């Protein structure tokens, strides 16, 4: 050793990096991905593949040729966006639609703001909502696709929430919660199995990737709000457990509302953020035009994050 390395303290660093955190999110998504592939078969594999590939490639091309900066694809964040976008689409989605979703997610929602860490809104959700508004028919086409498990057709043509919106609460006759917990018929790829999503949630908590505040406050708000409404009039309003287990609530509350970049920094802010998402979701489900409101709720609350950060300061030592 001829030369000594000199730098200010601290001299050691945690092993956790942006890439390792994002990789953990991908690992946490694996159970959900596997379940959706099992039930939607090749069409799901293709949607996932196209979505991930176009997200990563787009980010590479934009950083390399438009921003002329070192490429950031090694941080895995584009992969996360790609997987989440795919899980938010029907397995029947035409490929051009998936690519447009990726362009909106990465190109518009993420890179225009300056890339990872700079965007106000969750990229995958912006992509999904853009598609939902632009191509409502294709986005709600739950036509049966062939899965890898013989004898099980994953889709029945309409989601449970959609059935309630159209036919009222009687439409739910005969669905059991056990079914919902393990396998929810109909809906986006990522809405199939509550258990798979919960496994991911536990993994993220165990690896200390996320804190539970946001997710739990969403669940609690949805449970309490729909509980009150259900007690008032059970013939008109769906019950709390049904609301927790259906639609995009679990996927959104575990994987999208907890996105670092677009959620508040402090625990206190996270609770306010979660309560807001829960309320808006339930308002849309009960009184809105759409059967499901999770995506809109998260995007609306994303917009309030700078304000929440400003007012939710951490408690300082000795002050």
């Amino acid at each position, binding site marked *: *050793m001829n030369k*000594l*390395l*000199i*730098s*200010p*303290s*601290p*001299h*050691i*660093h*945690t092993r*956790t*990096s*942006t890439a*390792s*955190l994002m990789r953990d999110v991908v690992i946490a998504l694996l159970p959900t991905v596997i379940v959706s592939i099992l039930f939607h078969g090749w069409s799901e594999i293709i949607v996932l593949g196209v979505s991930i590939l176009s997200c990563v490639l787009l980010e590479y091309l934009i950083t390399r040729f438009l921003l002329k900066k070192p490429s*950031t694809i090694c*941080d895995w*964040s584009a992969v996360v966006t790609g997987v989440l976008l795919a899980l938010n689409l029907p397995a029947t989605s035409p490929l051009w639609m998936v690519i447009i979703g990726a362009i909106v997610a990465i190109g518009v929602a993420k890179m225009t703001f*300056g*890339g*990872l*860490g*700079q965007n106000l809104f969750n990229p995958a959700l912006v992509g999904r909502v853009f598609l939902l508004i632009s191509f409502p028919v294709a986005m709600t086409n739950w036509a049966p696709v062939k899965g890898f498990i013989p004898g099980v057709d994953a889709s029945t043509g309409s989601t449970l929430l959609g059935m309630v919106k159209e036919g009222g609460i009687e439409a739910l006759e005969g669905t059991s919660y056990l079914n919902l917990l393990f396998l929810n018929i109909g809906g986006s790829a990522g809405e199939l199995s509550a258990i798979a999503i919960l496994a991911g949630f536990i993994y993220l908590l165990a690896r200390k990737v996320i*804190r539970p505040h946001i997710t739990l406050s969403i669940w609690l708000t949805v449970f309490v709000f729909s509980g009150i409404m259900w007690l008032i009039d059970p013939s008109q309003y769906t019950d709390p457990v049904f609301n927790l287990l259906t639609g995009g609530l679990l996927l959104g509350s575990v994987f999208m509302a907890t996105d*670092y*970049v677009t959620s*508040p*920094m*402090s625990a206190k802010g996270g609770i306010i953020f979660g309560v807001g998402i829960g309320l808006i979701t339930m308002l849309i489900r009960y009184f809105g035009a759409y059967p499901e409101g999770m995506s809109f709720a998260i995007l609306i609350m994303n917009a309030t994050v700078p304000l929440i950060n400003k007012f939710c*300061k*951490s*408690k*300082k*030592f*000795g*002050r």
Partner: protein
Amino acid sequence: MKKTFSIGGVHPNDSKISSGCRIEVLPVPGTVYVSMLQHLGAMANPVVAVGDKVKVGQVIGEPSGFISAFVHSPVSGTVKSIGPRKDLAGWNITHVEIEVEGDEWAEGIDLSDTLVTEIPQDTKAILDKIKLNGVVGLGGATFPAHVKLCPPPGKKAECLILNGAECEPYLTSDNRIMIERSKEIVVGAAIMKYVLGGCPAVIGIEENKPEAIAAMKAAVAELQANAKGYDGISVMVLKKKYPQGGEKQLIDAVMHRQVKSMGLPIDVGAVVQNVATSLAVYEAVQKNKPLITNTLTVTGDCLPMERQHNYLFRIGTPLSFIIDQMGGIPEAAVKVVSGGPMMGKAIVNLDATTVKGSSSLLFLTAAQTVRKEQGNCIRCGKCAEACPMGLEPFLLNKLAKNRMMDELEENAVHDCIECGCCLYTCPANIPLLDVIRIAKGDVIKIIRGRQAAARAAAEAAKAAEAAKAAEPAKVAEPAKK
């Protein structure tokens, strides 16, 4: 449930590799270089001349202010030179160079191993001994010990906390002295407790040092059974969490009281001293031995077990001598740190000398210590979660880059204790503390400047008032004529 501080903190791997290595006495080198600035405050004035013969323990530097300390010769021999020499960070500091001849100690120093348990009952004499023997805080800040033990008028110590947390990874010297010299440390604690008016004393130790906890508990029990003045001393086991040994954090953990921003521990009734300081107090008061030795850990993952050491060294021993003794710098090391990996200083100059506060030579490899390229902030909030002062490092970083001084002060940048948790924990490798440290210095300067200006304005107003009061008399004077 074990206690710990209430906000933030991180859990780096504690890597106490050398915790089982007994303290070895390091040989005395041929030449020592004794720094005149081994303490917080004003540099000591050398009181020997070139050519003087000195004995071990003889005063060679005298304090030059209220916050300053005596410096003693760690060896016997001849003064060769007095002048500037570079310290481990590369600053020029006055050093006294002494060529070693024999090992002749100054008179009045008790060199026996006999444990003296009887506590002298004269506060002034105790404080004088602590001061005259050059005892400073050995937990890192090297603040003169006697100053901390004299609370300002109106303030009363309610608890003496002995800091045995040793929360920095790798360091094991405090652990070893707590195991090997536990009784002396407890006597030191009893002395300080007596000086402070008999308040209870708590020895805080992190749970990862079971041997030290057992030894200290046994020492306390034995002394309480056999001698007077040891009531109210207890050992408290603390959870393992960095920076437990930070003064404010330790007070929070032990007493559940938070020192106010810009305040002092005594404001909440606490006095904190390191266990090594307690040992130095014992030696100064009971043995009349000045602070000329300390314990230092030589460690690092790149050193095999047989090259891990805890050395009892003479203060003033050059670092290069210690490195020679331990068999040279390991091949894999790229950085040598004095102190722990979280708050220690990277050594610029291996010819520098050890000082009273030297606690370790830590060898780090490139994989451990070379900083990775920084990425974008992903707004994960991990830095704010880790900050033990409850600050928002991501925000301070942004404010500092834009030089927004008012906002920096509003967001309490001056409360930063520079523990390094934010930089340690940042997944995007953003050099948060580097930026915050500079901003903190600037903001403290602004605050001090404002305070000075306010004082000057108050004095000017007073003077103007006095002049006004005097004026009618002046006007009246000619009338008298």
